[in-house]
Each structure stands twice: as structure tokens, then as C-alpha cells.
């Protein structure tokens, strides 16, 4: 089988389902909308509150990650409505190839959109800050932009792997989103240092000019990558073992 052809086929699948392509676009659109709203209104007032200058520029990434998770989950879950997976595996019966192609397409799409989103939110947000603005030359800023794109990709892959395992976007979204919005903070206070190794907290280290403890910026991303890899391996095992 031609790997390029299978990759192209997976890309058409994502493009042609509203839920998955819509969430991919939402990564960018939601982030831009929040950036415009927040930085145009309270941007200058919040700029000198003593927070990390670089991290302050990535407020909207909180929303981008929700969309990235939704993208990863829906790109996979469309295989589990009805018997869609049977049609897919009839066309590409080598399950490892099918799995790798889907994962690669989710990763590439999320990385491309994630990087554009990260640079856009940084540059657009700063444009509103006047004297408080920082540029890409600011120490840690470029690292944070690239890191944010990778972070969004890893969150999409984490969701994709879990969806292969659980076979339902609803299950994955109702697991991951409350975790990121609530559990991570609540548990963070209880668990202390351990919370810094959660997939979201660890990966977000890269958004700081001066990471506030825990793993460093790149190590943090590597920790998130390990979470995503674990989810993807569990998903692959499930796809290999289960009857379709």
C-alpha cells in the first residue's frame, strides 16, 4: 500500500467531517477571538500586574487547547459512529498503517494550525499593549510561540489516543476538559509538586519566560509528549486487539 495515498485519504476524512475540521479551525478562530476581546479591553490594565511577561501573552492558549482536544477526539471518533471503522479497515487492512496514518495527519494538522495560532495570538495580543508590548526578541518569547504550537499538537494527540481506546469523543471530552479546567487546579493545590507533571501543567512550562518550578520548558513538553505517547500506545494496542 502507498503510505502517501493513505495519508491523503486520512486528510480527506478529516476535511470532510464538520466536527473534526470545524474543531481544527476553532483552534485558530477561538484563540484569535479571545485574543482580540481580552487584549483590546483589559490588556494594558493587566500588563503590569507583576506576572510573567511572556506567559501573560498566551492567555488565549487556554481556549486553543480545548479546541485542540476536541479536534483530536473528533478526528478519531468519526471512525466509531456506526461501523465506519469497518469501512476504513476494509480499505486499509494493515491496522498499524491505518493507525499511524491517522495519527500523523492529526499531528501535522494540529502542528500547522497550532504554530500559526501561537504566533498570531502573541503578535496580535501585543499589538494592543502599546508601551507594555514585548516582541519576539524578548527572552523566551520565540521559544514560547514554538512551544505553544507543539503543546497544542500533543494535547490533540493525547485526545486522539484516548479516543481510540475509549471509542467515543464524548467520553474523552468529558474526561479531559473537566480535568484541564478544574481537576488540574484543585489537585494541583492538594498534590503540590506532583501536579507539575500533569500533561497540561508540564507542557505549559514552555509558555513562561521564567518557569515557576517543576520541569523546565523543554522537559515539560517532553513530559506531555510522554503522556500523549502512552495514550497513543494504549490506543494502538486496542485497535490491534479488538475485532472491528
Amino acid at each position, binding site marked *: 500500500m502507498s503510505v502517501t495515498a493513505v495519508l*491523503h485519504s486520512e486528510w480527506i476524512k478529516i476535511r470532510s467531517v464538520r466536527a473534526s475540521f470545524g474543531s481544527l479551525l476553532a483552534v485558530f478562530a477561538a484563540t484569535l477571538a479571545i485574543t482580540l476581546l481580552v487584549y483590546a479591553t483589559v490588556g494594558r490594565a493587566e500588563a503590569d500586574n507583576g506576572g510573567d511577561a511572556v506567559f501573560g501573552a498566551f492567555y488565549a492558549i487556554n481556549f486553543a487547547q480545548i479546541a485542540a482536544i476536541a479536534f483530536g477526539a473528533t478526528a478519531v471518533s468519526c471512525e466509531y459512529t456506526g461501523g465506519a471503522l469497518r469501512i476504513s479497515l476494509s*480499505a486499509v487492512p494493515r491496522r498499524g498503517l491505518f493507525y499511524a496514518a491517522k495519527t500523523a495527519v492529526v499531528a501535522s494538522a494540529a502542528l500547522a494550525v497550532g504554530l500559526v495560532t501561537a504566533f498570531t495570538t502573541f503578535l496580535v495580543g501585543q499589538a494592543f499593549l502599546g508601551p507594555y508590548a514585548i516582541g519576539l526578541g524578548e527572552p523566551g518569547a520565540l521559544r514560547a510561540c514554538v512551544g505553544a504550537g507543539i503543546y497544542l499538537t500533543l494535547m490533540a494527540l493525547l485526545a486522539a489516543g484516548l479516543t481510540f481506546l475509549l471509542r467515543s469523543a464524548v467520553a474523552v471530552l468529558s474526561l479531559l476538559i473537566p480535568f484541564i479546567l478544574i481537576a488540574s487546579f484543585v489537585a494541583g493545590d492538594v498534590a503540590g509538586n506532583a501536579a507539575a507533571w500533569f500533561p497540561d501543567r508540564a507542557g505549559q512550562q514552555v509558555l513562561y519566560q521564567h518557569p515557576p518550578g517543576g520541569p523546565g520548558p523543554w522537559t515539560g513538553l517532553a513530559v506531555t509528549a510522554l503522556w500523549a505517547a502512552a495514550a497513543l500506545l494504549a490506543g494502538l494496542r486496542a485497535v490491534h486487539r479488538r*475485532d472491528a
Partner: protein
Amino acid sequence: MTSIDVKDLTKEYGGTRAVDRLTCTVAPGRVTGFLGPNGAGKSTTMRLVLGLDRPTSGTATVGGRPYASLGEPLRTVGALLDAQAAHGSRTARDHLRFLAVGNRLPARRVDEVLDETGLAAVARRRIRTFSLGMRQRLGIATALLGDPPVLMLDEPANGLDPEGIVWIRHLLRRLAGEGRTVLVSSHLMNETAAFADHLVVLGRGRLLADLPTRDFIDQHSRPRVRVRAADPTRLRATLLAKGFAVAGDGDGRWVVEGARAEQVGAVAAREGIAVLELGDERASLEQAYLALTADQAEFAAAASASPVSSTLPQEA
């Protein structure tokens, strides 16, 4: 020559045998009807052939190779398992397009199969807006996409209107006429009789029969002749004298059990009785099928009492 070969195939789901040591060969150049009541193991067998389910034991191959080892398998096997499986949010065209692209089929095939199945006008509509019959046509379009030498269709006539049923009958005959291997499952016996040359009959996962349709009907039904003559009284007396069982059908004709038209015709000719109407009464496939399963009294009784059919996952 590409045939489907199933050898000693067994599939168990949690202790229940959905397919039980099934061995059969589906040959090219004819339509093979795959018969059995719901839960007999037809769909499971098809999924096993496609490598979607793992067999507990035994093998299933297409043209001598396991399905998973085929490169660009849509070029070899076209399958319709479940017309509801296509994702409702895609358009018919996109659905066929991702399949064609992955198997490097030329883009024109998408338009060709849309035309062939009468879906060209709705190609850009989302599948969720399709009626059952349109989904069924899309499933058939999917199977035809790679112009494959082997076709495997699970209940293709489901949801089709009468016009669609005539269309699929002609399509199946044509595909077999082109030398392809065509396996069509159905639980509708008489519908199957209209297009199948050969039958493979399953009951509770086991092979009950594997033979030409005509032989199947002959073996499992008694022949019978209906005859109308100018002198019915003399014909009846003659037939009775020859040892035939003759009964009236209440409509001026005689029904002769256990005889064929040529026998009754010969008797009448020798006696010089003018015959006005004479014909074999073909038993329907349904009657033959019921006769076969009635032979298996244990099967008939157990099938209604056993939980087999209700616990089989995804058996349609």
C-alpha cells in the same frame, strides 16, 4: 480466478460459536446466495473474510491470500457490510473519494460508480439526509469502486424499492456474467432464488448445504405437476392406473404429486388425451429452506429457545 476460500473457520464470542468449523468455497462466474436466518453467522463470516474480526481458528482467504495481505484491497474485493456505516456528516462523493484515494483508484471511478448506482444527482448531499435505499446504493457504489473481481454483499436489497430490487438483481447477474465472484447474503429465500446460481446455507454457524440452487430446491421439495385436459376424467383414471397420486385443485385441474411434467405429458400422449395446460410446480426456495431446517428438528427447536441470536454482537 479469484475465489473466496473458507477452511474450518470458527469464531466464538464469549463461549458462543457464531461460526462453527465452516468450510466452503465461493467460486467465480456465478452468484452465490449466502442463506440463513438472522444470527446464523453470515455477517460474522463476511467480517472474518475481510480480516475485521479475528477467527478463533481456521482460515479465510481471497484468491489464496488473507485479506490483510492484499495491497490496495479495494481492487480485489468490494464489500457491503452495513449501509448505515458510512459517516452521516460526509457527502456521498467525499465518502467514495477518501476510499478511492487511499487505494490509488482513479478519481473518475468515483463518478462512474455514482452514475452506475443512480446517485450522481445527490453526490454532494450529506449521507445523513439519505433514505435507507440511497444508503444501500451508496454501499453498493462503495463495493464497486475498485472494479474488483470479488464482491461480497450483506443483504444488498435491504431498503431498496421494487425498482431497486430489480436493478440489483440485474447488476448481480451481470457481475457474475463478467466472471466475478459474487457472494450475496440474505435471509429472504425467495428473493435470493431470483438471482443466485448457487447456495451456501448456514444454520447456527454450521454449513447446512452448499450446492446449486436448482439442486437445492429439487432435493428439498417434492416435484408436482398441474395439468388441465380436454377429458379430465379419463386422464385421472389413467394417471391413477399408472400409480400417480392425483387430486383436484378445485379449479378444473389435476395436481399430480411426485411427478414431472414430462412423465404426465407422456402418459397423456400415449392415451391420446388432449392436454390444454401442463406445468411443473416449482417449490419455492422458501419451502425448500423450511424443509431443510425442519429436517434438523433439533436446530429449529433450539434456535428459537437458545440465546444465540440475541447475544451475537452486531449480527444483522
